[in-house]
């Protein structure tokens, strides 16, 4: 019988489950933010391309702010100051909001590049066939531009997935936060960070592989 309370205990198999669950949360917050952020970013990119000076003067500087300020500062500021304007969001929702805007800011320039990658003569040819502006956008600019900037977009998506680790500072128990909790208990940082790293790799690798495959197919 021991009189002391034990704070520390070694790494147990069930901790792996704990990390696995956290990895799913990382996947979930990333998938949500990347999807919404990419859609929003595509719209922003189109506005930058078409919007002339209005977008250049208004949208571009705002996006620059979100691209330039470190994500961790954005997260802390938003989480702590949003309640002042009546927005009481939990760590997950706050993380999604900021990661989405951050993704959109990055994707906007990728998307604009994609539209610009479709040369004006190509678009004139499409219009000469009687396609409307939106038909040209949907059937010519989108598929050609997407292929042109797809590798860049994958880079953004994988980056955001890894950056989602920063949402841990708000207390959302994703992969990194879960690792910190376990490290505190087990005092085995090397083992646990290695496992966490392996989880991140397992999340990224299929995406890179799939992307490479798609690119290969398009290259035909």
């Amino acid at each position, binding site marked *: 019988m021991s009189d002391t309370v034990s704070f520390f205990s070694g790494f147990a198999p069930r901790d792996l489950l704990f990390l696995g669950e956290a990895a799913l949360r990382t996947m979930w917050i990333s998938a949500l933010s990347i999807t919404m952020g990419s859609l929003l970013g595509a719209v922003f990119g189109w506005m930058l391309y078409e919007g002339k000076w209005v977008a250049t003067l208004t949208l571009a500087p705002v996006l620059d702010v979100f691209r330039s300020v470190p994500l961790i500062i954005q997260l802390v500021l938003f989480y702590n100051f949003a309640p002042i304007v009546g927005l009481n969001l939990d760590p997950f929702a706050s993380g999604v909001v900021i990661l989405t805007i951050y993704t959109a800011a990055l994707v906007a320039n990728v998307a604009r590049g994609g539209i610009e990658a479709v040369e004006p*003569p190509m678009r004139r040819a499409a*219009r*000469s*066939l*009687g*396609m409307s502006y939106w*038909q040209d956008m949907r059937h010519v600019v989108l598929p*050609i531009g997407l*292929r042109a900037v797809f590798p860049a977009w994958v880079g953004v998506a994988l980056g955001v997935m890894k950056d989602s680790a920063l949402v841990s500072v708000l207390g959302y128990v994703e992969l990194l936060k879960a690792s910190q909790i376990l490290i505190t208990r087990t005092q085995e940082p090397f083992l646990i960070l290695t496992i966490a790293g392996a989880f991140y790799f397992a999340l990224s690798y299929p995406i890179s592989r799939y992307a490479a495959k798609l690119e290969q197919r398009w290259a*035909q």
Partner: protein
Amino acid sequence: MIEIRDLHKYFGALHVLKGIDLDVEKGEVLSVIGASGSGKSTLLYTINGLEPVQQGRVVVDGVDVHAKGTDLNKLRQRLGMVFQQWNSFPHLTALENVALAPKIVKGKSKAEAREIAAAQLKHVGLGDKLNVYPSALSGGQQQRLAIARALAMEPEYMLFDEATSALDPELVGEVLETMRMLAEEGMTMICVTHEMGFARDVSDRVAFFHQGVMEEIGPPSQIFGDPQSEHTQKFLANAR
């Protein structure tokens, strides 16, 4: 019928078309020749409304191209256009390239659009390339693909903007052959071209452009045999 009246076009301060008057009848083949920068390509772009004009009118089958409220997307279905750069859609096979516009613009069913596309590709001699991507086609084949793509919309007129200028010399012939075939079938054509042989042999009339002005127009025998304008004479002497 295409009627062009007192047409003026500016690019900024640059006056590229200086009052063009021209009628093109149904079934006619008109070749437009002249030096680079003489405004002949711009003329084509004003006919299907790809370029706005500052003064004058273009009327296609009674429709004023540059009037407010003209449905240009609808009008362009009557005016097929082939460009110097063939602009094949790289993500689509030859068949899909040609079938796209009939499907999305004309609302044809997928099967119907593919049938039209296959027929037009056969027509231009690409019947064996239906499922090939443009990257696997030569420049001449891609330009014929572009012709088939335009024809699939069943246009009343075909506008050719230096359709052979970007091609390697050995590929020019097959494209000119295709254009010649269309002319023989009775297609109304306006061909901006540097191919003097084609202009002489195939056209009903030839127009010579010089610095935004249509200096001379007439049957090939006159333009090539007895040019009236000094500029035409000089241009043809250099072109030979």
